[in-house]
């Protein structure tokens, strides 16, 4: 049992490591860390626009969010204005479509 658990954990750790090196970032992807200054939900609740103040440049960046997991976090206030976010978005055509939007890790 002990050997099995050890092997299982090792296999999963290797899988995670492999996955982390096999996800190339698309050319138009932009990563940033910033504090949310405004969240505006669409009236139908199926999209939102979040404005972030870039920690590095101080510029305001507007990101469009369409994924349900993040929208759910907006709806039940797990992500609110003032939270620091690590975001990745596709800025092709200046649309700034969110690809990842999560609170900065740490604890």
């Amino acid at each position, binding site marked *: *049992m*002990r050997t099995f658990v050890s092997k*299982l954990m090792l296999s999963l750790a290797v899988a995670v490591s492999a*996955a*982390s090196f096999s996800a190339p970032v698309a050319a138009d992807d932009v990563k940033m860390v910033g504090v949310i200054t405004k969240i505006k939900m669409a009236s139908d609740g199926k999209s939102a626009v979040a404005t972030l103040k870039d920690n590095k440049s101080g510029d305001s960046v507007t990101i469009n969010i369409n994924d349900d997991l993040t929208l759910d976090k907006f709806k039940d206030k797990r992500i609110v204005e003032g939270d620091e976010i*690590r975001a990745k978005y596709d800025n092709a055509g200046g649309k700034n479509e969110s690809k990842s939007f999560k609170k900065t*890790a*740490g*604890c």
Partner: protein
Amino acid sequence: MRTRHVRTLIGVLVAGLFLPIQARAESNAELLKRIEVLSQELTRLKGQIEANNAATTANRQATEELREKVGKAEEKSSERWLTIGGDYQFRADSLWGETKPFTDVSATFANAQAQLQAAFFANPTPATGAALTGLMQFAQNMSGVRTYQQAQSFMGANAAMMGALGNFAAQVPAYKPRNDTLYTNRFGLDLSAKATQDVTVNARLVMYKTFGAGDDDAVTNSGSAPYFADRVGVFDGTLGHIPSSSYLNVDRAFATWSNIADQDIWFSVGRRPSTHGAPSNLRLNTPRPGNGGTPSLLVDYAFDGMTVGWAPDIEGLPGAYGKICYGRGFESGFRSTPGNSLQDTDMLGVSIIPIDTDPLRVWMQWNRGFKIFDAPKMQGTYFGNTAPKINLGDIDWYGLGAMGTLKQVGVGDLNYFADLGMSITHPNNNVSAQFGFPGRTRSRAGRSLHRIPGQHAPSS
């Protein structure tokens, strides 16, 4: 007459010739005058515009300065850097049960001591004196036992005494304890301060007390044999989690440095959020622990320690992160002294969460406790005032679990979890004399499965 008329006509004509010249001269003068007025007006307007421009520039500068001041004020405002939260819990319990008959070991020793002393003082003969001395010698020798072999030798050599102690056995018959109403107050104050852009300090202060009592007697059975293993007494690892007093204790206090090297890497140190981890948050109806916390099946103990973690951005594994944790379970104080052979108890853990989303969160955890102590420091328990007296060896803990929320299942959202744990001991051949020699020479494994098929929460 004719000549006069002609002259008059010529005169009129000549005069007429001069008339427009004079009128034109007057018009030019007027124009010049107007131009002059207009020039003056233009100059005045230019002046005004320049003054306006200067005022606009000044206003702009003032606005910029004001904006800067507001920005700085916002940065300094408590709303921006300090978050205050908290919770209050009132709980009413009604407890009842039924015990089995048992021999109260502590009471047996006390009974033997009391009876032998009484017999000696009533009749101080060599026989009663020897009996009392024998008991005292027995207790003294027992406290000196440190290893499994010594314990076996001790029990072999003292078989007669142990048999004789049976004559003083304090038998406790079966009974039905009950506490119809037990009310408790729990108040928690949460503080989160953003010290710098990447450094946050979090604290949680907790008061947890019983209605009508300033101690833990109501849950530890007032120094008699307790009913629950985790309610023997309150100590450093359970302070604030067991009703004890009206003091506001520090349950958590830790500083976290995030975004190290511009990556999702963090380092955190302090009194850790190592209690109420997943999936116990479902029972407590609190948010998921996020990157903090440990699986509650393995660790639900207030540790002082530190963590370094990394949350890589993996498209196929949203929310994935891993961390290495270290904690000190017991600080033994100065070593190499005549009176202290105890070593510190430390904990090392590795946690891998390959996915952390609402529908699915998976965790894998390994912990090792080094040099586990035999008893925590507790006051006034059934076992008396306990304290670590010996290190018993190491323990490995393995955990694997998952939880998630499925939306709109039946009447609402469905929360599910399953958690598997296993512990493997690595004894060091020591035994604990204060608890009747628990301890082993060979490794043992224990397993546990913690699962609830589902828990419904109404849809919002």
